[in-house]
């Protein structure tokens, strides 16, 4: 199962998550050199806040700030939860 949130517009990011037996995070970003580690940290912290350990996260970033990355990931997680209901 796969869910997405966000967009590829400037200052946004498109997050796709899918079920997985382990944690896998893939980041493609226009600012990966400068902010790749920070983006990964936001993703890991958001997953922790939602008590998720094993999942596949793909983040296509277009210069999103932390709050946007967190929001898009939270939306994708919420949508996955709703589909499972």
């Amino acid at each position, binding site marked *: 199962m796969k869910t997405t*949130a*966000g967009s590829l*517009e*400037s*200052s*946004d990011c498109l997050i796709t998550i899918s079920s997985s037996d382990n944690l896998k995070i893939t980041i493609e970003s226009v600012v990966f050199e400068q902010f790749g580690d920070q983006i990964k940290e936001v993703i890991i912290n958001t997953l922790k806040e939602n008590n998720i350990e094993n999942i596949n996260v793909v983040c296509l970033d277009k210069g*999103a*700030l*932390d*709050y*946007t990355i*967190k*929001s*898009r990931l*939270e*939306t994708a997680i*919420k*949508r996955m939860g709703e589909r499972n209901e």
Partner: protein
Amino acid sequence: MSRSYLFIPGNTPSMIQNLDVFDSDAIIIDFEDSVNTFDKDSARILIKNFLTKYSYDEVDIYIRINSTDSTDFYSDVNETNDLDITGYVLPKASVEAIKQLNRITDKSIIPIIESPLSLLKTEDICKQKNVVALLFGAEDYTKELGIKRSLEAKEILYARSIIAITANAYNIDAIDTPYTLKEDDKGLFIDAVNARNLGFTSKSSIHPNQVVIINKVFSPSLEEITEAKRIIKKSEETKKGAFSLDGKMIDLPIIEKAKKVLEKAKKYNL
């Protein structure tokens, strides 16, 4: 007492994180028309995280929620009610809809008058708790009447007059409908001046480029400020309820109006 209200889409980070650079006195974050049905949840989460992280003292922030007949109405309010926002803009306003909103929030409410029925109920709407302004939505209003909008705006003159008069009678702000031609500065200026001359205290917009003109039109001019200062000075000197200034009779309503002009001038450093 804001001069300008700028709508920005609730699910667009590039606009949201720049909300304080547009020079609009108030921002209306939109959860309604500018957000696709499937992305309403996304907008609520985005705004919640944004306003939890950042705060703004210089600009009033409102959220235009979905109407009470939408399935998103309760989520829009419940998921944002704890945020540091000034209040809610309520589409498709009615007395019952405002009561419904008042049951779940204590925040300020700006109802949108956008149907013939809501226009007829304008006074009752003004009397409701937490209503701080009326916003005219001419696009939906003319759509319901089945008439076309024109640049002269004669077809909305009656509705504009009722809204401006009623809001002023209840001492709340009257916010005019947006001018939809975003490249037409001259047309915007004329439209805003017409609204101001009917008694509107402010105007909404859908494009940041319109804010400068709107702020200019709804700011008191230097002449108005000078006149207001003279009225207040003479009022304090004479200590009378009514007096003459330059051969013109000045009484309480004019003194109150002068106070408002000075209040506005002070607020916007004019």
